[in-house]
Every structure is written in C-alpha cells, then in structure tokens.
C-alpha cells in the first residue's frame, strides 16, 4: 500500500509491462476494456511463474530435498503476500482455491451447511454475481433455511429498508454480499450491512472479486468473516483464488475436499485433519499459480493500490463524460463516478449488445455483452443484456476515445 498521497500512475508506462498490448486485432492496436472479466498479465508475473517452473518446480510440503524446500517456501510466501495484501490477522486464515466461485462454495458447503437449518435466514442481494447467489440457493434448499434478497433501486443502489422485516423472519445466519457489482460498478453499503449482520449474530461473506484487484482491501477494517477473490482478475494466473476466513470459524469447521495435504493421519477407519490453512487445501495445490499471484501482488503494491483506485476513478469519470456524447446511449447503473468502480454498463437505442460488441471488435475494442453472470440483476433492471466496458491500471483515455469512435460506427452500421 502506498502512503497518504497516492502517486499518480502512468498507464502508458504500465502498458509496456504487459506483452499482450503488442497484439493487433484486425490490424489495429488492442483496446482491452474487459478487465472486470479477467485481467491481462504483466511480464514480471509470467517470468516469475516460468522462472519457478524452470528452477524450483517440485511438489510442496513433501520433499526433503532442496527443490521441494524452495517450492514449499515459494508457495507459503505467496500466502504471506496475500495475508499482507488484505491485512489478514494470520496466514492461517488464507486458503488457496481455484477462484472466487470455489471459495464461496467452500463457505456455503462447510460453514453454511453446519450453521443453517429450518427457521434460519440467509441474506443476499439482487446485485450478486451468480457465484455469490447460486451457492446460497443450493444451501437454502439443502438445509431448509430461507433465502432473502435485498433489492436495488432502478440505478442499482442497494436498498436496506427490508432489513428489519427480514430479521423478524428468523435467525439470520449468513449475509453474502458483493463488495462491488461486476455489472454496474456500484459499491453497496457494506459497512451498514456488516453492522446489521453483527447485531443479528450473522456471518458476513464478502465477494471481493471486483475490489481486491484495484484498491486497498482490509479484512480487519471491513470486519467481515469471509472474503473471496480470484487471481486471474488481479494480474495473476487463472487456476488460483483465495478464501480468507476468520481462524476461529475455520478451525471449528469440518473440511471441504479431502485427500492428501489436508490430513494429519489416515487409518482405514479414521482420519484426522491437518491444521489451518492446509485443512482446506486437498491435494496438490496450484503452487506455481501461487508464485504467479505473489508476483502479481508485488506488481500491484509497487504501483500502489491507492494509485490504481484513483486512476480507475479518473478513467471512469472520463468514460462517463465521453459516453454521454453518444446519441441514444444510456448508462445502466448510477450515472456518476462517485459511488462506483471502473465498470460501466450501457445500452444503445435498440441495438443489441451482441451487435455492439461484435462491431466494436472490428475496431479491436474488447467489451463484454450479455448478462455478466448477473441474470437476476438484469431482470430487475429490465435489460436482457448490456454492454460493459471495464477499466484497470493499464487503461488509457486514448482507449476510451477508441471506444467512443467505435460506438459512432455502431450507430452508422446499424442505421440508428
């Protein structure tokens, strides 16, 4: 984390660190506006992973030999880096998973199953990505608990006025909420929700897939119980994600997957579990991906998460201003840059988002079109699909200009 005044970052210099920006699409320089879906990768991260495979690759937690020691040290150092990044009180609370989705499923299928039953209430919101919604549906169905969703207003702002009514419906056990909507960029009032959840004695599960990549996230300040994010959205490889969870809870929870690494001792009739965090890591972990994640975190911290946050804010403001120039374009979500991250969803007259995305691709502009894995939110807002442009530390105003030029061409081609 950087100090008080975030150093301004220079996205043009940063781009030089990302080999993919040498790529041309249809003869034009790549404009990548889909970082909310997955991030691009800096050379330093790729070098760290390849370097690891080329010098220290060995299975972890097993080998007495030098390579095995190096690889274990590298894997566990990545855990330390994650703990530092999110200010976890203990490295024992950092569990490596495949992605955010697995992390959230892990909570639902262990803590959730152990703590929920008929008469209990699970609370989520219509803002959620399917990853923070479907596991709770499955949990509610499996346990007989009631699942309630907080609504949003027409611009996607989370409404808390039903909380009192929900509290009267039963024992609220779990509150699962996103730190930032991947579709709209809005940031729900997490602090208020946490206060309310605490008063109910409920656990708070925070889906931080959209915030760990781009601003300082502090699990202690947030005072949540679980937090999940994905490596692939934080400059790191695919195949690795993180579940952070309070040690006191994880320690008394039964394991999720079982097998090697997560055991203490195995007999034919009886098995005992390893200590935290390994109890929740069955089988050979994604240790090379952990090395990549470590390098990605180093890169993010060198740039500074405050600086990235500030940059995304500035880019989003610029984008909102320029999108306003496009006739027939309507922003979906809050119209101002204040309460949101670097994500903008929009629709354009009645041109279908797929057509927009496909025509933009001819301009080498990558945007997402669809429901963005938030079908209930789309339904609530009355859209079958939107176009989504999302930004990151390497996004430039020149790229936004290319988006706008592309959108004018969409209007021409589609005759609107």
């Amino acid at each position, binding site marked *: 984390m950087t100090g008080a005044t975030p150093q301004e970052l220079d996205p043009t210099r940063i781009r030089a660190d990302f080999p993919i920006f040498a790529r041309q699409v249809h003869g034009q320089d790549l404009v990548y506006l889909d970082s909310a879906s997955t991030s691009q990768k800096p050379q330093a991260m790729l070098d760290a992973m390849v370097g690891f495979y080329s010098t220290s690759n060995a299975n972890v937690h097993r080998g007495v030999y030098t390579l095995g020691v190096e690889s274990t040290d590298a894997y566990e150092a990545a855990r330390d880096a994650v703990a530092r990044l999110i200010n976890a009180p203990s490295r024992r609370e950092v569990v490596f998973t495949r992605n955010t989705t697995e992390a959230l499923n892990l909570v639902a299928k262990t803590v959730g199953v152990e703590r929920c039953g008929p008469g209990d209430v699970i609370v989520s919101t219509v803002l959620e990505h399917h990853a923070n919604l479907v596991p709770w549906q499955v949990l509610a169905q499996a346990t007989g608990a009631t699942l309630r969703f907080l609504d949003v207003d027409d611009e996607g702002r989370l409404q808390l006025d039903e909380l009192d009514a929900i509290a009267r419906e039963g024992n609220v056990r779990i509150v699962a909420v996103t730190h930032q909507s991947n579709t709209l960029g809005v940031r729900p009032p997490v602090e208020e929700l946490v206060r309310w959840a605490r008063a109910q004695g409920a656990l708070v599960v925070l889906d931080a897939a959209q915030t760990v990549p781009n601003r300082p996230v502090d699990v202690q300040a947030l005072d949540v119980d679980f937090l999940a994010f994905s490596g692939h959205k934080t400059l790191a490889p695919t195949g690795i994600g993180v579940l952070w969870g309070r040690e006191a809870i994880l320690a008394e929870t039964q394991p999720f997957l079982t097998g090697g690494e997560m055991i203490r001792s195995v007999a034919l009739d009886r098995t005992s579990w390893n200590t935290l965090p390994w109890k929740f890591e069955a089988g050979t972990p994604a240790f090379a991906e952990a090395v990549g994640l470590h390098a990605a975190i180093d890169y993010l911290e060198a740039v500074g998460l405050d600086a990235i946050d500030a940059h995304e804010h500035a880019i989003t403001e610029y984008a909102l201003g320029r999108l306003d120039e496009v006739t027939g374009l309507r922003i979906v979500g809050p119209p101002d840059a204040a309460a949101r991250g670097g994500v903008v969803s929009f629709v354009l007259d*009645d041109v*279908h*988002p*797929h*057509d927009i995305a*496909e*025509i933009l691709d001819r301009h080498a502009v990558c945007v997402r079109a669809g*429901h963005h894995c938030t079908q209930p939110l789309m339904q609530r807002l009355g859209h*079958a699909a939107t176009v989504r442009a999302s930004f990151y530390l390497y996004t430039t105003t020149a790229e936004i200009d290319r988006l706008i030029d592309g959108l004018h061409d969409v209007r021409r081609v*589609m005759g609107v």
Partner: protein
Amino acid sequence: MDDLYRENLMDHYRHPRNHGTLEHPDCEAEGKNPLCGDEVELDVEVVDGRINAIRFTGNGCAVSQAATSMLTDLVQGLPVAEAAALPSQAIIDELGIPLSAMRVKCAVLGLGTLKVALHRGVGTPLPPEWGADDDEMVWG
C-alpha cells in the same frame, strides 16, 4: 466492417420477412438464448405436409433476427420433413458472414425453434442436439 454486417443481413434485420403471428398455427414454439437474451417465437401452418405459412416475432441481436427472417423465406412451401432436417449450415451460408462459435448460437436460434415447433406440432424427429425439455432452450 463490410463482411460483418452485410447489406442483406441488415436488410432482413431492419425489414424482417414474415413478421407477426398466425391466428391458428399448427405448430408453435419459443426459442430463447438466456446467455444473450435472444428470443424468437414461431407460428407455422401446415397444409398437405408442407409449410403453408410461417410467422415470427422476436427480439435480439441482428444475427439472430435476420437469420430467423431468412429462415422463414427459406422454408416457406417446403415439406415439413425437409424443413425439420435443414442443417445449421444452410442458415450460416444464408447469412454469408463469418461467425464465431458464440454467434453461431444466435444464427441457429430460429432454426432450432422451428425444429421444436414442427416436432411438437406434427411429430417430425428432433435430433438430440436440439433437444429441449422446457421452454427455456439453449441451442448448442
């Protein structure tokens, strides 16, 4: 740009053929691609084993709607067995633009819906790749 949204495609999109509904269809079905929200509804009238009339409504991307419009032209007057056996490639050829795997789904939505409609209405075979067990169909 030109090879993407050809004039023919845009013409079908802006001026869809056989648009609307039939009063007394012999066959009908809805097709929906929940991933992108494309939708079509098809009504078919069968006379003497042939498609006598066909109408569609829908909304979605240009590819899905233009392809459905082209399809209705293509199958008009065809024996139902022949229409039910129409391969996806026929529609893709008709569109005449390069399509990624994802856009192929848009292109064949209308065709799949027609196959389901004919299957339900007059019992033509429904190959398993078009198998739909409810109204919420996903082609592909």
